[in-house]
């Protein structure tokens, strides 16, 4: 049993936001068939959004590019999906929310609260939605204000998901901590783009988007490593984790648990596979507790 900001997880793998998180039934499937220790919903905002035109996601040799554009049905319509996930998933369900201001974040959190999410994850990090996500998440003052605003009205833990598209992620991490965050989640996608050389058109409907998957893992490991040093609160590692080895590496950098996103492309049960792999590794190495691993790389000087 892993405890993270008071939530009990049967294993340290969590479904990342925006992956198979649009419907309650799908979240339940990731928990049951996939074996995730907890699930995060698609980021939900104040008004319905259809997102950017397609192509909204392409697979590259090194990872994935996406510009979904935060499609979501808005909190009143998502409410029933959250209820389904809470009722049937059997694992903690974290509501990912976004807005353009502290007031909008508050409105969405308040709207979803009666469905009893186990925690909120504040998306201040999506790199390709104008006025939202990283647009607010690169400003430490706004991040602090948004975190404080949500903390003010909810009693469940609040996690803040950070963008790597800033010169110093620890500065934003500190702002989240100052606002009262219970944990930070690092990282969201890195800005990226691909161009079709036959036609000259950028491939994504939004022209540019965010890079995820294998390609971003070294960036995520470094961000987690730096945040672990800079913050008191736990760091949740995400970005390019697709195997138990990746998860261990992320934990040695300082991640208390890991989230997995793009790797569901390979197989849905990647969560069970990672958590079994971690258990076997702990045994083989003679660790009595996963805590002995977390941040281990910092001691190796």
């Amino acid at each position, binding site marked *: 049993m892993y405890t993270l900001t008071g939530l009990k997880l049967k294993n340290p793998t969590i479904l990342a936001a925006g992956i*198979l998180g649009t419907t309650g039934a799908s979240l339940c499937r990731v928990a049951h068939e996939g074996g995730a220790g907890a699930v995060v919903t698609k980021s939900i905002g104040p008004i319905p959004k259809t997102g950017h035109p*397609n192509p909204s996601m392409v697979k590259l040799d090194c990872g994935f590019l996406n510009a979904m554009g935060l*499609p979501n049905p808005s909190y009143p319509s998502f409410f029933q999906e959250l209820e389904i996930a809470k009722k049937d998933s059997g694992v903690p369900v974290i509501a990912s929310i976004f807005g353009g201001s502290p007031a909008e974040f508050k409105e969405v959190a308040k709207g979803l609260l009666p469905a009893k999410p186990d925690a909120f994850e504040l998306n201040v990090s999506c790199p390709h939605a104008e006025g939202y996500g990283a647009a607010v998440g690169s400003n430490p003052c706004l991040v602090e204000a948004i975190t404080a605003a949500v903390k003010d009205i909810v009693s469940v833990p609040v996690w803040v998901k950070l963008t790597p598209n800033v010169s110093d992620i620890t500065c934003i991490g500190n702002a989240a901590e100052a606002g009262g965050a219970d944990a930070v989640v690092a990282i969201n996608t890195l800005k990226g783009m691909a161009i*079709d050389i036959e036609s000259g058109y950028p491939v994504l409907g939004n022209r540019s988007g965010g890079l995820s998957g294998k390609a971003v893992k070294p960036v995520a490991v470094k961000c987690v490593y730096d945040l672990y040093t800079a913050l008191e609160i736990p760091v949740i590692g995400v970005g390019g984790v697709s195997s138990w080895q990746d998860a261990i590496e992320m934990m040695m950098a300082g991640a208390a648990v890991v989230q997995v996103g793009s790797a569901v492309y390979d197989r849905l049960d990647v969560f069970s596979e990672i958590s079994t792999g971690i258990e076997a590794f702990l045994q083989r190495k003679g660790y009595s507790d996963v805590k002995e691993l977390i941040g281990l790389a910092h001691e190796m000087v």
Partner: protein
Amino acid sequence: MLPLNATIVQINEESPAVRTFFFDFQFETMKPGQFVMVWVRGVDEVPMGLSSKNSITVQKVGEATSKLFELKEGDSFGLRGPFGNGFSLPSEGEKTLVIAGGVGAAPLAPYAEAARSVGSEVHTVLGARSAGDLLFEKRFAEAGEVYISTDDGSKGTKGFVTDVLNSLNLSVYDRIAVCGPEIMISSVFRLLKERQVLEKSEFSLQRYFKCGIGVCGACCIDKSGLRVCRDGPVFSGVQLLDSELGKYARDASGRRVKI
């Protein structure tokens, strides 16, 4: 996979609102029922079933398909695929029933041909609004017997494909493959269930696709949480028991909309 550049080599006018676009390479491994994402550059990327190894058959409904209809031979679009699971093929000697409505005939024509080529006896129930809207009648006829229904009675039985099905002995078939508008497939679903032949059936579903590769979750159906783009688009009738089929779907934002 980045989109391949597909040059249009031939365009067939199938009916006033439906055209087949042949392109300059073949998806050799394609299984009937699989789809491609068709990128109409600068507009949108939309899913289309493969109507052969080197063609898609498109009904003009909105922005992307209208733009496709403006393209001429020699023009190009982007293509990714083939994606998803196709219909399962019969074995030699098995009897196959194909039930196609409207543009749902697109993935079923290559299926009927493939079934025939492995030595299955193929019967097709082909439905459309009127005689002029019937798709691939010749291809289905070359694969086996064809029963036709049109809404206006301009050819075959007047009414829906279910009216034809009512007069058939469904227990003789080993496999039943269905594709068409959701209203149609959900009434076929009910009929097959009533006649207790659902376990022999497969249905191709349509939902709003964003990523098309099984990551985003836009296309997931209730109550199973299965992804139409990756776990489908072809599902067995049994998988669809107690599902949202015929009741509601989700729009691009994820909101439920009544069928």
